[in-house]
Structure formats: structure tokens, C-alpha cells
């Protein structure tokens, strides 16, 4: 299969909120911009399908939909695997050579808007058994948004952040039994399925919580597994589900 060659002034990697916002700013300024959208769904697309979250993030969702509709002709459905300066040069002037499974793209500038992912079990202090029913917040939300049930009685574990309050409300509306606990360590019990979680933290030494599902969250990290180079923009730097911060981060960029 032959690869298609494309040239553009700006390539924005990632079609989440930050990628779309950034692309629209660039397009408005007359920059020839392309957005690469991978097969992974953006977070906003997930929120869109979740009642409580979509109303909480409605402002950003509206904006995202509108901008994406305008930008549609500029969206390239492909996953960027590699970005490097032409001829391996480090200079600011050198153009970028970009690879994806279907395209070879040459760009004057590359912006990385690949978002975040939730920290994994171990950094979140989740130890013990790993039976079915243990989810990162992000995965729990995506699964629920796709119409799955992920359990009956959910324990939310981690740092108290705004997102947990919203999720708690959402889960209750969806008829889950739900409880939040703040702690440093969680030891998961059960073999077939989560049968309970023993939590350790400042507030209590060891306390057992009954549940069949654990959702953990203790912050996020930038999602850039291909270690793409370019200008890092948007929530690749942010550490929470705070879209105000994402917006500020994008607007702060100077071109």
C-alpha cells in the first residue's frame, strides 16, 4: 500500500478539546492547518454521552462541537507515529517530517495535543488482588458512556477533586450505590470480582469498605506514548479534568 504525501503549515496531533481549539485559532489566523484524529476517542466525545458530565462540561462540549464542525474538512483520521525534524536538524527553521500508517506529512510546525490519561494502579496506591471490577476513572467513564454497567456497589478512591463529586452524582443517577473515600493506599480483596477494599490513609488506619467495584483516581499524566516531538499544547500539561485550565493552556501559546 502506498503512503499518501501531504504538506501543511501546521499539523495538530489530537482532536480532543485542546487540538480542536488550537486548530480553530490557527485556521482563523489563516494558517493552513490539519488535525490528526486517532482511533481513540477524545474525552469530550465520552462526556457527550454521559448525562451529568455533559451538563457540567456543556460550555466546552458546545464549543468543541461547533469548532469541530467548522474544521471537519481539515480532519485527517490517522494516528501519528513519529515526528522529526527534516534531515535530523535541530534548528527551529527545519520543517517536520511526520509519519502515520497511511500518510507522510511535511509540516512547518507540529503541535502535540494528545491529552492525558489517569495514573495507573500502582502510582495511585492500589495494591492487593486484581480481580474484575477495578477501573481507572477514565476507563470507568468511557465504559459507562458506551452503555456498559461496570458493577453495582462502587467505591471511589483517591484524591478529593471536583470530578469525583460529579461522577458520584452521575453514578447515583445511574442507580449505582456509591461512596467516596480519600486515602493513600487501597488493598483490593476478592478473586473473581472485587469483594471489598481496605483503605489506609491519614484519617484512618485500616478500614474495610464493602463494594464490588473500585474506581480510583489520583491525578493524570500526559498521554504521549509515541513520544512525539513538537509544541506541547493543551491538556498534555494539565493534571486534572479541568477544562478551564486546558483552555488557558492553549490560549497561552504564542505563535
Amino acid at each position, binding site marked *: 500500500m502506498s503512503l499518501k504525501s501531504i504538506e501543511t503549515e501546521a499539523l495538530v496531533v489530537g482532536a480532543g478539546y485542546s487540538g480542536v481549539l488550537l486548530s480553530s485559532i490557527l485556521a482563523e489566523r489563516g494558517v493552513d492547518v490539519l488535525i490528526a484524529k*486517532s482511533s481513540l476517542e477524545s474525552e469530550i466525545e465520552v462526556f457527550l454521552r454521559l448525562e451529568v458530565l455533559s451538563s457540567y462540561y456543556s460550555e466546552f462540549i458546545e464549543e468543541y462541537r461547533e469548532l469541530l464542525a467548522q474544521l471537519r474538512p481539515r480532519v485527517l483520521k*490517522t494516528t501519528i507515529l513519529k515526528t522529526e525534524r527534516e534531515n535530523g536538524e535541530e534548528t527551529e527553521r527545519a520543517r517536520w517530517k511526520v509519519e502515520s500508517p497511511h500518510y507522510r506529512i511535511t509540516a512547518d510546525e507540529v503541535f502535540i495535543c494528545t491529552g492525558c490519561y489517569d495514573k495507573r494502579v*500502582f502510582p495511585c496506591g492500589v*495494591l*492487593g488482588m486484581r480481580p*474484575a471490577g477495578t477501573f481507572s476513572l477514565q476507563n470507568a467513564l468511557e*465504559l459507562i458512556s458506551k452503555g456498559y454497567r*461496570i458493577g453495582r456497589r462502587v467505591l471511589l478512591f483517591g484524591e478529593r477533586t471536583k470530578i469525583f463529586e460529579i461522577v458520584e452524582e452521575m453514578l447515583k443517577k445511574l442507580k449505582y450505590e456509591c461512596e467516596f473515600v480519600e486515602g493513600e493506599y487501597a488493598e483490593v480483596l476478592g478473586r473473581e470480582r472485587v469483594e471489598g477494599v481496605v483503605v489506609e490513609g491519614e484519617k484512618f488506619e485500616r478500614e474495610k469498605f464493602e463494594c464490588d467495584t473500585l474506581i480510583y483516581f489520583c491525578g493524570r499524566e500526559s498521554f504521549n506514548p509515541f513520544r512525539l516531538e513538537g509544541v506541547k499544547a493543551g491538556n498534555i500539561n494539565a493534571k486534572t479534568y479541568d477544562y478551564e485550565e486546558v483552555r488557558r493552556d492553549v490560549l497561552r501559546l504564542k505563535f
Partner: protein
Amino acid sequence: MKIKNQIFDVTIIGAGVTGCFIAKELSKYKLRVLVVEKEPTVAMGPTKGCSGIIHAFQLPFGSLKGKLCLEGNKLMDEEAKELGFRFKRVGLLLICKSFLSSLVARIVKPYFSRYLEVRYLGEEEIKELEPNVEAKGGLLFPSGGVVNPVEMTFKAKLFAELNGVEFRFESKVVGIDVIDVVDASDIGNIGDVSEVGEVGGVTDSTDAMDTTMGTVMDTTDTRDTADENPYFEVTLESEEGEEKIISRYVINCAGLYADEIAAMVGDKIKIIPGKGSHVVFEDKDFSYHLIAVLPLMPERKTKGGGSLVTIDGNLIWGPNLVDVENKEDRSVKKEEVDALIKKHSKPFKKLPEKAVSVYAGVRAIAGKDFIINSPIKNFINVAGIQSPGLTAAPAIARLVVRILKESLEKKGLRLEKKEEKSLKLISSREQNVEPICHCRNVSSDEICRIISDGAGTLDDVKHLTGATMECGRCLPAVLQIMEEKGLPLRKDTCKSFIAWRD
């Protein structure tokens, strides 16, 4: 009568690495072989929880496990090629922190040289191989390697299946009865085992094992006469209820539960569970060898663990040895993690950046050595296969074939090779496919393919493709593919669902 389809020459209990390699080896002969496994898929016991090391050696060299380890290690290139699993000889590096221990290393080197390749390395040479390691000297065993244990087992199963071995998952052996069948024709023809003399006698030439493993077969088998014709009636329990099959031979590869299986035929084995935990780091290129510090500080029965690498290049520290009461206790405790990090950070100048995950496996320990014997006629124990069972698996399989051959010969029967089919090996990653797992660059096509090859649970998909292994973000997408392919959304041994639709 339905029973006609339920008669096997050999029934293997347990689809861990041992059971699957025996099945693979037996699939080359004209035999009707059945593998019975209580879990939904292969390698769900200790095989999955192990460290993935193809050990260079196992002490003492004279023990059964010591010999089988060396032989298994030697066979691994051939196996990896035949079955198409990834295998890298990264080398084992035993380092010395002090001048004194480097002296000891030089003294013991000739002893090791009698059995395998080993080189003494000085301070500078080590620095060159492992820039992050600080050592006064060390021993390098180039034959030490790494595999993905699930991949290795799965491929052996695929080969066996392709060559006619039947697998029954989610079927637990709950009883074994010895039945005397006066005439084999009572229950139909037993496989294609032909009479000796019928076909010109080609038998395996005696190899090294012959002389060293005379103790393997119990003497009971020598009392075997052609008239006595014992068969086993094996009771399987599954969701559909109980079912009985008949088998001429039974091989007990039930891992942690080999004691229960042995007890069914009146044999006494005691299996003690010993948990081993690991910490997995995101760091790649942190170090390149399997590294341990000399003198080795074995925690009683283990080799003491080390700083290891996976076949994908990630750093792993472990395993330890913790006594557990429950054979299924794979929980990792915080204290263990702290201790592992403290212990294994010693050889290094700088520490790894990010621990991302922990996991444990439970060893099936039955005394000091493997137990490979035949307590009653036509029943073979392959029990107490603790470390280095993964390494030894190909050698264990060959040994079992030999035992079987000998036993058949005593009955005037011989094992006959058949034309074997080889696995279609997928040479390399396809180009031009969009990944859904960005960390390991796995496409949905690849996931679909592994599912049609027989992956049965999320853990299969995860271990065989690498998807969801690192950042975990593609989990929902992977579950969706599984659902579309009609797989129940289950995790390893769990009968319980991860997610479901109302």
C-alpha cells in the same frame, strides 16, 4: 454409546506451561490426546504470575530441576522458532559489589564452566555493558533469557491443537477411577498406537537423560504385564454438569493442585504455596541484563530474585518469597513492594523513574525438587514444578514422552510419529494499520486475530498482544472488540464479568 468419543490415549490435567508443552510434544505422535483445564484459558496459574526468565542454570546442577533447566534452556531457541514466540538471550549478570566477592566469583567460575558458558567481567567491562551498574566485577552467563510466558504457553497450545490435541477449558477434574478393561475392544480402538514389530522399529536413541534419570519411573511400572490393561475413568465438572471420559494414560500437570489430583489415585504429594511478588516499571533501557548481586541471598527456596527485564524491555524487580495460606492469594502488599525496591536498587547508580504495576504468582512447592514419577501404572505426576519450570518445560515434555514410550514398549506397543503440521508464523507487524493501543502499537486487526486464534479472556488479549498493558487507556476499546467478537468480557480466572449490558 456416547462414550466412544470420550476415549483418549492420554489425558493431561492442567494447561499451564508444562501441560501445554507436553501436549505439544505428544501431538507429534499418533495419539488421541486431551487437555483438561479448569480455567477459561491457558497459563492462568503460576505460569502467568512468573517472571518470564529462561534461567541459565538452577542449582544444584545434579538435581532433576537442575538438569531439566539446562536442557530446557538449550532447547529454547528451537522451540521459539518452531512455535513463533519471542525469546531473547539477554544474559544473566551476577555482579560483585566488593573486591572480596569478585575474588569469590573468580574462584567459583570454573565450577560453573563445567556446565555452561560463563565469563568473568572486570569493572570496566561491566560499565560498558551496564552503564548504570556499579560493580567491582561479575559473572556473565550469556544463555540466560526472557520470554513472555503466556505467549510461550499459548503458542504451544496452538501447535498442539493444530496437530489434533483436544482442549477442554472450564472443566475441572474432580475424580479419577481406575477401571480394569479386560479387552481393549470393549471400549473401542485406542488411538493409533501400533504393535511393536508391525512397523520397523525406530525408537528414540538413548540420550543423556537415559543415564541420569533412571529414578524417574517408579518400579511399579515394571510389574506391568500385557494382560493387565488398566484405564482411567476421569470425571470432569463443568457448567454443563459432570461428564466422564476414559483415558489410558493420565498426566498430572495440575500445578498448585497436583496434590489433589495425585490423591485421586491414592498418591500422597504435599504442595505448599509460595507467593512471589514483582514490581513493574515503565522504564525501558534502564538496564539490559538479568542482574543479581553476589553472593546470592536466596530467600530459602528461591534464587532470591533480581533486577530483570521483560521481553518488551521493561524493568521488573522481584520475585520474593512469601508464605501464603491460600493457593490463590496473589495479593501484593505494600511492605513487599518497599522491600523489593530497597533490595534491588542496590546495584544501580540511579533509580528507575516510574513503578507502574505490581503482580504476583504462587509457586507450587513440593519439597526441594520437581516430582516426575509414576506412582501407579499409566499415571504420571509432573508435580511440584516450581521455578525453573518455565525454562524446563520443553525438557519436561520430552522426558514425559520418553516415560510414555517406555511404558508402551513394555506393553508391546510403540509410539508412532505422524506427519505434523507447522504453525503459520506471522512474520512481523503489519504495516499501514491504525493502532488502538498506542503504547504497544496494537491494531484492532491484531486483537481480532488473536481472538480467532482462541484467546478467551481479557488477560489473553492483554498478554498476547500487549494492548492495555501500559497506560491502560485502550481498555474500553479492547473490551468493545471482544464483545463484537462474541467473547465474554472476563478477566483471567474470573468467572465474573468486567462489564456487561443490562
